[in-house]
C-alpha cells in the first residue's frame, strides 16, 4: 500500500485525501490512556490541546499518583482534586474511573478501546497484560489500533520490569552527571527530566503511526523505553565515547571553545548569562559595559587567552554585573548585539513578555483549584492553533458524559453498572 502511495504524484496524493473539513488539527482523534504520573498523561495533554478527545482512566482505589503524592495542593490541603501537579499534565481531558479488576469495569474498558484510535499506557511492563488490556489482546480485538506502551526501560530485556521514576532514570541515562562543576556533586534538574523527553518522542511516535494508519489502515504497537528516548538527547556525547573514548563530564556553564560563556550574579539574587562567540562580539560586550580596559587587558586579548584566563575573566565580568538588574542588563547587552539572558525563575516565567506574547499560560477555572494556569506547548500552528480547552478533570468527573453520551449506555444500564461497582 505504501508503494502505491509513493507512485502517485504529490498533488494527487494530497488532493485524494483533501476536501475534509476540520476546525482542529486533531479534531477527529480519540485517545484513551491508562496509567498516571507524567510519561503517559502528558503526551495526550499535548494531543488534547490540538483538539483530540482524550479519556484518562483511573480508579478510586488507584487514582493517578500525581493526585495524592506530590504538592502543590490548593491551600496546602491534600486531596484527590487539589493537586496542582496532577492538573498540570491533564488539562483538556475527560476523567473517568473504572474498576479494571472487576468484570463489568473491564468490559467498559474494552468499549472504550473500541471507541479509541490510540491507547497510551505507562504501567510497569506486564501490568496491563495482567489486567487483560495488553496489546496481544487489544490488537486482535481491533487490528487498526495504535497502542503506545511507554516505560522506564522498555517492554523487553532483563531490566524491563524494574520499577522506576524519571527522577532517578535521569541519572542512569547520564543527564545529572552532566550538571554541575567538575569537582562538585552532580545536580538534579528538579524533576523527572527524562520523562518529558520520552513524552516528546511518544507524541511523535503515535502521530507518525496515526498517519501510517490513515494511509494503510494498519495498526501499530509502539514499545518506547524512556531510557532509550532520553539517550537521543546525549547522542553527541555517546558518539564521542565511541569514537575517542572520552567520557563527557559536567563543566559548569562553560563552553568547550568560547569565553566568556557563563552565568553572572546580579542584584537581589538575580542572575544573567552572557556569551561571546567571536572577537567582534567580545568587543561589543566591552563597549556595552563601557570597559575599554577589558579590551586592552593582556589576559583577554584573544579568544584562546580568554579561555586560558576564564576564571579571572568571569570574576571581572561578575564584578561589573553584581549591582545591576538582570532584566535591564539583558536588554542593554542585546541592544548591543551580545548574547545575554536573565535566568528566569518560575515566578519570572509568569511575567516574561515573550512567554506572555505566545500565550503559553492559559487560565481555566477548576471546581477545587479555582482559576489557575496551564502550559501550552512550544509549537504554534498557523491554521489550527492549539489551546487549553478545559481544566483537568476531578476524579471520575466525566463518567456520565463519557459512558452515556459518548459510548451510548442507557441511563438505567449506567446506574446498574454503577451499583455493581464498575466505576469504583
Amino acid at each position, binding site marked *: 500500500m505504501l508503494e502505491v502511495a509513493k507512485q502517485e504524484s504529490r498533488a494527487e496524493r494530497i488532493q485524494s485525501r483533501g476536501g475534509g473539513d476540520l476546525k482542529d488539527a486533531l479534531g477527529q482523534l480519540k485517545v484513551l490512556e491508562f496509567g498516571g504520573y507524567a510519561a503517559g498523561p502528558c503526551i495526550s495533554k499535548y494531543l488534547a490541546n490540538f483538539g483530540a478527545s482524550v479519556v484518562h482512566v483511573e480508579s478510586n482505589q488507584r487514582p493517578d499518583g500525581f493526585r495524592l503524592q506530590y504538592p502543590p495542593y490548593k491551600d496546602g490541603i491534600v486531596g484527590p482534586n487539589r493537586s496542582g501537579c496532577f492538573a498540570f499534565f491533564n488539562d483538556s481531558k475527560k476523567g473517568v474511573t473504572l474498576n479494571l479488576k472487576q468484570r463489568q469495569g473491564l468490559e467498559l474498558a474494552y468499549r472504550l478501546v473500541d471507541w479509541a484510535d490510540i491507547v497510551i499506557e505507562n504501567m510497569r511492563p506486564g501490568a496491563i497484560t495482567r489486567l487483560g488490556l495488553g496489546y496481544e489482546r487489544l490488537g486482535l480485538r481491533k487490528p487498526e489500533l495504535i497502542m503506545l506502551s511507554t516505560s522506564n526501560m522498555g517492554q523487553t530485556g532483563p531490566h524491563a520490569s524494574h520499577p522506576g521514576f524519571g527522577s532517578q532514570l535521569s541519572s*542512569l541515562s547520564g543527564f545529572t552527571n552532566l550538571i554541575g562543576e567538575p569537582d562538585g*556533586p*552532580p545536580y538534579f534538574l528538579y524533576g523527572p527530566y527524562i520523562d518529558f523527553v520520552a513524552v516528546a518522542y511518544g507524541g*511523535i511516535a503515535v502521530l507518525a503511526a496515526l498517519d501510517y494508519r490513515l494511509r494503510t489502515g494498519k495498526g501499530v504497537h509502539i514499545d518506547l523505553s524512556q531510557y532509550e528516548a532520553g539517550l537521543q538527547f546525549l547522542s553527541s556525547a555517546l558518539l564521542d565515547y565511541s569514537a575517542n573514548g572520552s567520557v563527557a563530564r559536567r563543566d559548569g556553564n562553560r563552553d568547550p571553545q568560547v569565553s566568556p560563556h557563563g552565568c553572572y550574579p546580579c542584584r537581589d539574587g538575580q542572575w544573567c548569562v552572557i556569551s561571546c562567540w567571536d572577537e567582534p562580539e567580545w568587543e561589543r560586550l566591552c563597549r556595552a559595559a563601557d570597559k575599554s580596559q577589558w579590551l586592552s587587558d593582556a589576559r583577554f586579548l584573544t579568544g584562546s587567552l580568554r579561555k586560558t584566563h576564564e576564571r579571572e575573566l568571569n570574576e571581572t565580568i561578575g564584578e561589573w554585573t553584581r549591582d545591576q538588574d538582570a532584566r535591564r542588563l539583558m536588554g542593554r547587552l542585546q541592544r548591543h548585539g551580545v548574547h545575554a539572558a536573565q535566568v528566569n525563575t518560575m515566578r519570572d516565567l509568569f511575567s516574561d513578555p515573550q512567554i506572555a506574547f505566545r500565550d503559553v499560560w492559559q487560565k481555566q477555572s477548576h471546581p477545587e483549584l479555582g482559576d489557575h494556569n496551564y502550559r501550552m506547548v512550544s509549537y504554534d500552528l498557523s491554521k489550527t492553533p492549539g489551546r487549553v480547552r478545559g481544566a483537568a478533570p476531578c476524579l471520575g468527573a466525566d463518567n456520565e458524559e463519557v459512558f452515556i453520551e459518548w459510548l451510548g449506555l442507557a441511563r438505567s444500564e449506567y446506574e446498574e453498572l454503577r451499583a455493581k461497582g464498575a466505576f469504583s
Partner: protein
Amino acid sequence: MNLLSPYRVLDLTDDLGFLAGKIFGDLGAEVIKVEPPQGDSSRRRPPFLKNGNGSPQSLYWLAFNTNKRGITLDLRRQEGRDIFYRLGQTADFVIESFKPGTLEEWGLQYEALSRENPGLIHISITPFGHEGPYRDFAASDLEIMALSGAMSLAGEKDGEPMRVSVPQAAMWVGAEAAMGALTALAYRTVTGKGQHVDVSAQVAVMAALAHAPAFWDLTRENPERAGIFVTGRSVKGAKMRVMWSCKDGWINFIVYGGAAGRHTNQQLARWMDEKDMAPPWLKDMDWSTFAVTSITQEEVDRLEAPIATFFSTLTKQEFLAGAMERQMLGYPVASVQDITSDEQLQARQFWQPVKDQQSDITLAHPGGFAIFNGERLQIRRPAPAIGEHNSEVYANDLGMSRGEIDQLKADGVI
C-alpha cells in the same frame, strides 16, 4: 518500519533544528539536508572525530544528520533561491532555523513557498519564535536554558544556576518541532491543507520544568534550586536528599512515601540489616503508613543519616545490581561509559554500528528511539558529506543536465 516513507522533507536547519529532520529520517521520510556551499556551521562544533586526514569531523554533526541526504545551495544568491523554490514545490515539509525575517528577505517564506504547493508544512525553529519582544534576541543554548527557567532549578541554593553541559535546548526544540509538524500532518491528511508551524525553543525547554511552575501559580511559592536535595515533596517544606556519595561516584535515591515508596523502603531496610547497618528504629518503621507529604526536616535528617552511611560502602554497580534484584527505586549517576556497557541496552540491541565514510571508522550510534511492531527504527544511511548528493538530487529530482549542474558548481551556487 518506515512509517513516513511517502514524504519528502527539506531540512535547512543549523544545529538549533537538525534533530527535527533526523526524527523524520528515522521514521522513514526522505530527508534532504540543504547546506550552504561551505557546509553547515555545526560541522565545526565539538566534539570531533579525528579521522586521520587532517580535517576532523564534528561528532555533533554526525550524530544528528544520519538518515539524511545532503546537498549544497547558496541561498544568498538569486539563482540559489530560484532552485530552492523549485525544490520546495516537490516537498511535503520544509524545516528551517533561520533568523526571523531572513526567508522573507529571500522571498522564500511560507506564503511564497505554499502558493503553488498548498499542502506544504513549513516549520520554523528559532530561540523564541517568529514574533514577539525577544524575536531578534541573540541566543545560544545558554541563553535559551536561562530564559526557559531550567537553569534556575539546578545548582546550589543561592549559588550559580547551572545548565546541562551537553547542550539541550536544540534537542527539546527539535523534538517538539517534529511533534508540531506531525500534528499539522494529521490536519493535512484530512483536509489537504498545509500550514506554518512556528516553534519556540524557550517554550520547548519549559517541558523540562515538570510541575515546578504550578507552585508559583497555585501557592505563590517560587521553587528554586536546592543543590543535591529536592524540595516540594512535603507541605512542611522539608528538603530530601537526591544525590548520595558512594564508593566510586554518586547514587540518585529519594525516600518516597505512600504506595510509591513502600516496597523500596522495606527492601532498603532489609538490605541494610543484612549488612548490620540498620539501626533498630529503622527496622521497626511501619512503611505501609509512612508518608512524606507532611514530613518535617528533623524526621528526614534522622532517616537519611544511616542510609548515607550505608550507600557510602557501595559502588555504583553494586547499587544498581541490588536495586534490580530487590526491585527498588533508585539508580546510580551514570557516565557515558557506564551507559555504553549497560546490559539492558545491549539486550534490546539499542546500539547500531554505522561506518563513517570519510574515516572508515565504525561508531556505535544510539539506535532508533522506539520499537514499532517489534522492529527498532534503523539508521539507514550515515550523515552526508558536504554536497554528497548534489548530482543525485539536482539531476533526478529537478531534471537538471550534467552541464547545468557543472555550471552551478563552477558559479559556486551549489
